[in-house]
């Protein structure tokens, strides 16, 4: 049984931790007392781990309705002198930017950290984004760790700095740090008695400390830049986090920030350049330590900048170089030397260094063999992501497609959103016309409906996404009479990120109970002409409701409800309830493939030779929707 990493008291011991675990552990060691987040890969585990601390001592850890609110929760706690944390994926930073861009002017009281996890290559995201650019946009210090160990130490140091200089700061992680694992040294945890007494003061040393409006914003803006000057002078220029390696005598230099530093070290070694190139390791990609940059550039002929994301360090470096009349040529992403888009991989790194420093690389594998290996990949069938057996969303998508068939709607416009239900863009449904960001489908449905297109418009949205950013768009639809159907996939959880409880669930991240807000009365209160809830596993009932919603003249909402299959499975295991399993009667199966072509459960196995469908008993979840789909009643409980 694992002793939890967050609460283990073993100062000095080194333990394997992911970057996210290390960040959470660092915050707990630093005495964080309020933490808030909205789930999003690769950031989710930070708050989940902090919740472990909340089980042992009196701190507040919550899943907020969205990132803007999460930031405000953390900032509010800081106003009362508490150390607070807000974590998010890069897209969440956009959601909270409006609040951040004002509150950064007044600064904080209790230390406040924003942990932003970027997803280079957008493995689990809708875009690639470098959050450091937005830190620069609001003029905020960014710490960028190159390992889980560094991430933890930066969090602890970050709290002291944030409190001393009264400014929030950003810890910028990336997927490879957040989900990477290495040894991290444990420090002491605070005891349950070490909580701060909250205290709020409107004029906290400065008159109208917490005001940022027309009568004083210039003054606040000026004060913020004064603070940032102190951040540079008192921290960025003097901290050992930013340092030069291999002496500063070489005419060749590389400036590397965050994970790029680790990749660089391995690449230099592989190229036999480990001793020949000066390295400036950057831990504060914004703002850069100008004095150190200037002395690093002095005497250099070529300087390469390596960083994950956009050329944030590079552009600042170029500005310093120009200002100083430095002779060095600066190379990097902006100059087109590092390929984009996508992740900064070892291969990209070594190729760039080899090219720029004229070091011939001896290839490990001949071109012919590379081609041969790529050919091997052609044997592999694509493994598309899919909804699980027993997923209520698959049943709802089936009901939706049946309703469209019944109403003879050939070309609906179906706007998707963020969550497991978006997986229906794969066969057999292949029914989504657009996907952008949280809540955008409902907003776009407003515009398409108002455009006058004749096609029926349908917006798909999950429960958690509805609370996050869908509600204002639906209220807008009622208020402005936009005619479309909003189909809510309500499985009671934020499934795609690993089952975090949304506001319609009654559980805190620590497992404690809290009030839930049901969706049906909430949507009914808007006065929309048609709002009903159905059971997702009753496909006929859901189909009828969708048909009714599509006939409705105003905005309509159908809430299709059913628990996430993975959650039901967990509950069954806990209660030791056996799972039902379906099988196919080969006598009754005519091989019509309706079940595969219209429903396509991941537990189905098609036997081409015998031309009939079967069910994998290990995968079957026993939801029974297949029995509703088959016209020949070939599926039976076994």
């Amino acid at each position, binding site marked *: *049984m*694992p*002793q939890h990493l967050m609460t283990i008291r073993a100062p000095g011991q*080194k333990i*394997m931790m992911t970057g996210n675990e290390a960040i959470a552990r660092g915050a707990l060691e630093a005495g964080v007392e309020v933490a808030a987040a909205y789930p999003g*890969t690769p950031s989710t585990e930070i708050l989940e781990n902090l919740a472990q601390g909340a089980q042992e001592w009196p701190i507040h850890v919550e899943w907020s309705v969205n990132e803007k609110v999460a930031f405000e929760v953390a900032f509010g706690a800081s106003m009362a002198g508490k150390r607070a944390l807000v974590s998010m994926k890069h897209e969440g930073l956009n959601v909270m930017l409006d609040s951040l861009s004002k509150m950064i002017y007044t600064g904080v009281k209790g230390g406040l950290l924003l942990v932003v996890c970027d*997803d280079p290559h957008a*493995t*689990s995201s809708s875009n690639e984004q470098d959050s450091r650019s937005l830190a620069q946009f609001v003029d905020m210090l960014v710490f960028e760790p190159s*390992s889980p160990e560094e991430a933890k130490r930066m969090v602890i140091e970050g709290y002291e700095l944030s409190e001393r200089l009264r400014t929030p700061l950003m810890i910028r992680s990336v*997927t*490879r740090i957040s*989900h*990477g*694992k*290495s*040894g991290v040294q444990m420090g002491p945890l605070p005891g349950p008695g070490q909580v701060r007494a909250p205290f709020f003061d409107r004029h906290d040393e400065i008159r109208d400390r917490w005001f940022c409006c027309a009568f004083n914003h210039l003054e606040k803006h000026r004060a913020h830049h004064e603070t940032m000057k102190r951040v540079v002078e008192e921290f960025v220029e003097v901290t050992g986090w930013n340092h030069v390696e291999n002496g500063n005598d070489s005419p060749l230099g590389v400036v590397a920030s965050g*994970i790029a*530093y*680790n*990749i660089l*070290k*391995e690449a230099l070694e*592989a190229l036999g350049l480990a001793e020949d190139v000066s390295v400036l390791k950057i831990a504060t990609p914004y703002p850069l330590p100008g004095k150190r940059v200037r002395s690093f550039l002095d005497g250099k002929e070529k300087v390469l900048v390596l960083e994950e994301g956009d050329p944030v360090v590079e552009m600042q470096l170029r500005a310093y170089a120009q200002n100083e009349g430095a002779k060095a040529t600066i190379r990097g992403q902006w100059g087109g030397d590092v390929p984009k888009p996508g992740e900064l*991989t*070892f*291969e990209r*790194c*070594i190729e760039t260094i080899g090219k720029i420093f004229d070091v011939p690389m001896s290839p*490990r*594998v001949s071109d012919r*063999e590379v081609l*041969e*290996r790529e050919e*091997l*990949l052609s*044997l*592999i*069938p*694509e*493994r*598309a*992501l*899919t*909804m*699980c057996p027993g997923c209520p969303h698959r049943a709802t998508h089936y009901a939706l497609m049946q309703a469209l068939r019944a109403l003879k709607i050939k070309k609906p416009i179906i706007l998707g959103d963020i969550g497991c239900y978006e*997986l229906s863009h*794969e*066969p*057999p449904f292949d029914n989504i016309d657009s996907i952008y960001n949280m809540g955008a489908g409902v907003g776009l449905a407003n515009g398409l409906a108002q455009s006058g297109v004749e096609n029926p418009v349908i917006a798909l949205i999950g429960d958690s996404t509805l609370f996050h950013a869908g509600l204002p768009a639906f209220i807008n639809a009622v208020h402005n009479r936009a005619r479309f159907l909003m189909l809510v996939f309500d499985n009671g959880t934020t499934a*795609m990120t*690993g089952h975090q409880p949304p506001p319609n669930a009654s559980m805190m991240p620590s497992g404690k109970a809290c009030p839930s807000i049901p969706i049906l009365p909430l949507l009914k209160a808007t006065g929309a002409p048609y709002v009903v809830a159905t059971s997702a596993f009753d496909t006929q009932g859901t189909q009828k409701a969708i048909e009714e919603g599509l006939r409705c003249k105003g905005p309509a909402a159908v809430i299709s409800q059913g628990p996430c299959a*993975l959650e039901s499975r967990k509950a069954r295991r806990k209660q030791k309830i056996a799972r039902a399993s379906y099988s196919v009667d080969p006598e009754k199966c005519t091989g019509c493939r309706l079940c*595969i*072509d219209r429903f*396509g459960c*991941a537990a189905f*196995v*098609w036997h081409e030779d015998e031309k009939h469908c079967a069910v994998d008993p*290990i995968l079957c979840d026993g939801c029974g929707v297949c029995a509703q789909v088959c016209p020949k009643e070939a599926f039976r409980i076994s």
Partner: protein
Amino acid sequence: MKDRINLLVAGVGGQGNVLISRIIGRALLEEGHAVWVGETFGMGQRGGPVVSHIRVGREQAAPQVPRYQGDLVLGLEPVETLRVVSQYLRKGGEVIMNPRPVMPTNVNSGKGIYPTLVAIREAMEKVTPNIRVIPGTELAQKAGSPQSLNMVMMGALVASGKVPVSAQNVRRALEEEVPQGTEALNLRAFELGMEAYRETV
């Protein structure tokens, strides 16, 4: 033994890659090795491929094994093993593989063909002759649950001697990391995997 080793674990979401890398990583760290483990998951929970990169002997390492520099691929699923072998394994590296496929839905909907095991093996032989097939799912069922497949395969990995850890330390890490109440089952699976590997030698 070489001081720097690159291991890869290939599988499909739900097969338990992450637990393998967690246990092996822990045992390595406890024996004083520098370890960096990288995982590609995210949406893996929805049946996508999952690859774990375990880099031993480096403090500052690229988070993923560089192309064609893998020393060993531990495969929980055949085509996923082939995918990782072709992208990462060095020429002549070792492969330890479970032969039971997890069918992609595309294959069922007639959009793809799952290659035969013979074809998969022949393809991998273009990279290396060192391929060992361990009947992981079968042994996991014998241990008491098909879900202990990952521990069977981890047993085979440890028995290969390619990871600088003692079986005793791995057992201890296993007991610390698996869910309470499943220790005996998972240890049984681990021992079956060790034995199965030895029988292939």
